[in-house]
């Protein structure tokens, strides 16, 4: 009889259904997290532990992978090793256990900084240009708006390699190959389609009456845009910015084809981390962990706007 006393809906799944669904989804989530967890753990293994059979789940944690990621090392003979002064820090100590000494910093720090510079640079530019264009498309009558918007979208359908050939030639002529500026401009061009589409959606949702009131109060159109629309669109702009940043952060095809040393970002670099005798898996895992962690944190922050971002605003929830 208790069922009758509370509000009951036919669309509400029974508690048994909820249990089964919950168990299946959590099971999938745990399986899907396994590879990521494994990479995280491998970053804290010693190289012999990382390639042991059967795979070690319980092991003595070590930061050797991280030390190897940030340094280059040379092998020395035991007698040379004995002649050295005692190790200055923990990194020296770890390296010496393998009969090696630290020769200098590796390129990882530099590549990571390139990712940061190019990521933030192109995000900033895409957001500035994208907000302006989105505002104009949203508020003014621009001839061929639909055609222009579709044109902006269609630039995303080209395989990156197809555009890479002439860009490679063009950048060689202009002296932009392997420069930060060149990569920033390129990623901006790729990201701007996403930025315009998403931001137009966000700005469309801001009532026009606000700006009109401001215009009547004597603001210029630009002041109205700057002081009324921008603050209203702040959340939308922030989430669009994170999407642009993640794209630039993850991009590989252009980076591997158009950069080699100076402006190379981390994604083409991480797979090339080589240790003594094949790939140094803990170092690779450490690099992947450092590189992927910021994106995971941003994804959790973004979760409310995720769907909108990944579908170019086609699905708004």
């Amino acid at each position, binding site marked *: 009889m208790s069922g009758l006393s509370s509000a009951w809906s036919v669309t509400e799944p029974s508690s048994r259904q909820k249990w089964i669904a919950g168990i299946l989804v959590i099971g999938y989530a745990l399986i899907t*997290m396994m590879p990521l967890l494994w990479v995280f753990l491998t970053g804290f293994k010693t190289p012999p532990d990382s390639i042991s059979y059967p795979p070690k789940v319980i092991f003595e944690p070590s930061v050797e992978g991280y030390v190897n990621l940030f340094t280059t090392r040379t092998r020395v003979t035991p007698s040379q090793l004995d002649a050295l002064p005692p190790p200055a820090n923990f990194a020296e100590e770890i390296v010496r256990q393998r009969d090696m000494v630290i020769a200098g910093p590796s390129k990882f720090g530099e590549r990571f900084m390139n990712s940061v510079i190019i990521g933030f640079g192109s995000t900033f530019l895409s957001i500035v240009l994208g907000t302006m264009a989105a505002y104009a498309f949203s508020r003014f009558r621009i001839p061929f708006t639909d055609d222009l918007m579709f044109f902006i979208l269609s630039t995303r359908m080209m395989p990156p390699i197809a555009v890479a050939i002439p860009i490679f*030639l063009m950048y060689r002529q202009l002296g932009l190959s392997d420069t930060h500026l060149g990569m920033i401009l390129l990623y901006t061009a790729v990201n701007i389609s996403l930025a315009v589409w998403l931001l137009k959606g966000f700005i469309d949702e801001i009532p026009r009456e606000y700006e009109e009131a401001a215009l009547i109060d004597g603001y210029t159109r630009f002041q109205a845009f700057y002081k009324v629309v921008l603050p209203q669109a702040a959340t939308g702009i922030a989430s669009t910015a994170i999407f642009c940043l993640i794209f630039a952060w993850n991009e590989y095809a252009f980076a591997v084809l158009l950069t080699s040393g100076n402006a190379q970002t981390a994604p083409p670099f991480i797979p090339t981390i080589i240790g003594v005798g094949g790939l140094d898996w803990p170092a690779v895992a450490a690099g992947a962990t450092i590189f992927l962690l910021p994106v995971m944190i941003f994804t959790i922050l973004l979760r409310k706007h995720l769907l909108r971002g990944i579908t170019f605003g086609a699905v708004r929830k």
Partner: protein
Amino acid sequence: MNDSVATRAAQATPPGVARRVKGLSDRAIAWIFVGPTIFLLLAINIFPLIWTIRLSFTNFRANRPNREVEWVGLRNYERILGDSDIWLSMQATAHFLIWTIVLQVLIGFTLAWLINKKFRGNDLWTTIIVLPMMLSPAVVGNFWTFLYQPQIGLFNYVITWFTGADPSSFEMLGSVNLAPWSIIIVDTWMWTPFVMLICLAGLRSIPDYIYEAAEIDRASKLRQFFTITLPMVLPFLMLAVLFRGIENFKMFDLVVQLTGGGPGSITELASINLKREAFEKWRTGYSSAFAIILFVTVFGLASIYVKALNKVKER
């Protein structure tokens, strides 16, 4: 709804309001605001595309810029259509495309359907499931090569644990039979959440009253699923397939890191073949023609598909 409200507001605004205020005219501001974006896209997207079209009619080689360039007309295109390597790479692409979409739609829809049962904590688990798709495909491909290592890899170990097979008896990436499936597994792991999220949005858009009405009509749960749930999620599902289709047709980074197109050229997808022609063999003219063919194919297929999608939406 939002759009129509905005449009109505626009129509209700006297056109004079904007013009009466001081400063630049609206038209000038519109062009100043849109101009830089259009310029950037023209310079870095359209100009290169036109250049690619031009190159596709020549025998230009980017590694020998000083050699005299000859116009060869449509010869590059003719040779591509008769090139068995290219057809093999298109076959590999089709195999990859079809299976990734089938698996991602099945798993993604099922997950969305389960999450929509609204068990406690479903938001948290959804966020966890979504993580893989936001990561860098190249780095993902790189660490999956570690998981796929013949003896020491976690993937092989888990398979061994379940099937009892010898862990060093199979190589996921090194064997001609398994490599095409290895790349499908990783892509499915990475992108199922994408399909799931879009399906979830579709499921959540179905108003409760439709189910309530069906319940009053004594329609069975199965019948409700096929006559309400599925048709109403279909446009969303088709949108997800469109996005995945375009992305996987251009697939490059993930697979390059996993197999590099190997063993032999069994996983050499169209983009990987294109990269080899353009940046290893330096047949710039030839690869430009291939790039144009790929672009036209994606664009054509996507346009036809969007038409079908709009028909489904209208129903």
